[in-house]
């Protein structure tokens, strides 16, 4: 218990003093996960909206697939991205393996289905309410998607934050395609795994604390957004 207590004290000290290694790892984690979240939203939100307002043969199967993809195992995603980006892979010529870009790609693949599936549900509920009014206004498909995305903005921010939460906390995909290289691709989750295996609990705990704060912050932001939206009747 002495070791744990010492490690916790050291971890708090690292956080309070703004240790350079710690900050570098946190900054890279945020950069990778925020980039993946933005790209996943650019892909997933319009996709979710289009599926929400469309009726076509095979739609049910597509919904099952979208929901199933929400549970993609990170190590499988990491492996698939690795196979594509490795020197022998079809995209090996890009030289992206073991770079932050590879990690962003892997996390994007991981969370885009989450964003698409959750936004589809949100937007379909909203479209059910608006459908007759929109048909009466003779809106085009593009206008309909734009209007739904804007009117569901608070709920969709919650969806984006859920995607970010998933991205920033995952370790399996980024460790395979990033390699956990010091000062290059080391992020919070991979550093925690490494430092724990080395017995350096202080840095691992410090990173764990930061990760917990981020998780709490994300949830607080979600709650705050919901309350704001409800207060303004925009939810």
């Amino acid at each position, binding site marked *: 218990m002495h070791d744990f207590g010492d490690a916790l004290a050291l971890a708090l000290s690292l956080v309070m003093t703004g240790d350079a290694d710690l900050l570098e790892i946190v900054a890279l984690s945020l950069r990778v996960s925020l980039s993946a979240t933005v790209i996943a939203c650019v892909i997933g939100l319009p996709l979710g909206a289009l599926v929400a307002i469309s009726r076509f043969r095979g739609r049910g199967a597509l919904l099952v697939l979208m929901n199933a993809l929400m549970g993609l195992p990170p190590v499988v995603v990491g492996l698939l991205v690795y196979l594509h980006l490795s020197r022998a892979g079809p995209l090996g010529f890009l030289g992206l393996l073991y770079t932050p870009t590879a990690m962003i790609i892997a996390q994007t693949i991981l969370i885009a289905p989450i964003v698409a599936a959750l936004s589809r549900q949100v937007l379909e509920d909203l479209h059910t309410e608006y459908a007759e009014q929109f*048909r009466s206004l003779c*809106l085009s498909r593009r206008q309909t998607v734009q209007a739904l995305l804007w009117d569901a903005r608070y709920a969709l921010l919650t969806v984006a934050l859920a995607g970010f939460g998933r991205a920033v906390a995952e370790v399996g995909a980024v460790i395979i395609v990033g390699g956990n290289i010091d000062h290059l691709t080391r992020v919070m989750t991979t550093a925690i795994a490494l430092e724990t295996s080395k017995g350096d609990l202080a840095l691992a705990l410090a990173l764990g604390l930061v990760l917990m704060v981020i998780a709490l912050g994300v949830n607080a932001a979600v709650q705050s957004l919901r309350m704001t939206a409800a207060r303004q009747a925009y*939810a």
Partner: protein
Amino acid sequence: MPDASLTLAGAAPARTAPPLLPLKLRGLSLGFGDAPVLDGLDLDLGPTGCTMIMGANGAGKSLILRLVHGLIPPDAGSIDWNGTPPAAATRRQALVFQKPVLLRRSVAANLDFAFRARGLSRAPRDALLDHVGLADKARQPARLLSGGEQQRLALARALALDPEVLLLDEPTASLDPASVLMIERIAADALARGVRLIWVTHDVGQARRMADDIVFIAGGKVAEHSAATRFFDAPASHPARRYLDGDPVV
């Protein structure tokens, strides 16, 4: 108090297309499952005035509005807006629903959305808000308005489309008397500006105040279509007489 001097001039291009009315419905049928709600309905509506559609609950009054507006297709029969193709006809009408569907935006943004949807200038927005008595609430979230205010906003949004025909589906149901009168005043002003009104109502008093002619629906057909004064003074059909006497109408 609504401002009766509203003008939408400049919002819409001048009309060059043939008039949308008369409207001819022939053999219109629509049902759900084995039960037909409308059963070979025929109806002719002239180019001007306020037509009130009345009938018992479930008679198919609201369905008629949705059918003529192109929101749902009939099982059988035809809808002829003076030869205008259905899609073009829908763009020249506006429909106010019984329960207003307002966007999760401000009052002003709800109107802007309607102007943008039809590619119209939003210049008349403030005058329109003033016309329906909502000028001081332009920045408020639309869904926080009272029921009467929400319906006035829905009516303003319909008028923003500069329609030739305004379809009203029980817009004053569950509103207080003052709100009902405001809606009627706004509708009357639209009528005075040449907008054709086709209005579904259960409110006999409202029909007496507003209607030029009454279409009474029973048994999936038009049981009676006559001038309002005649309809209320001496209804020709048995179902209409029962309805006005407060008896159940099948």
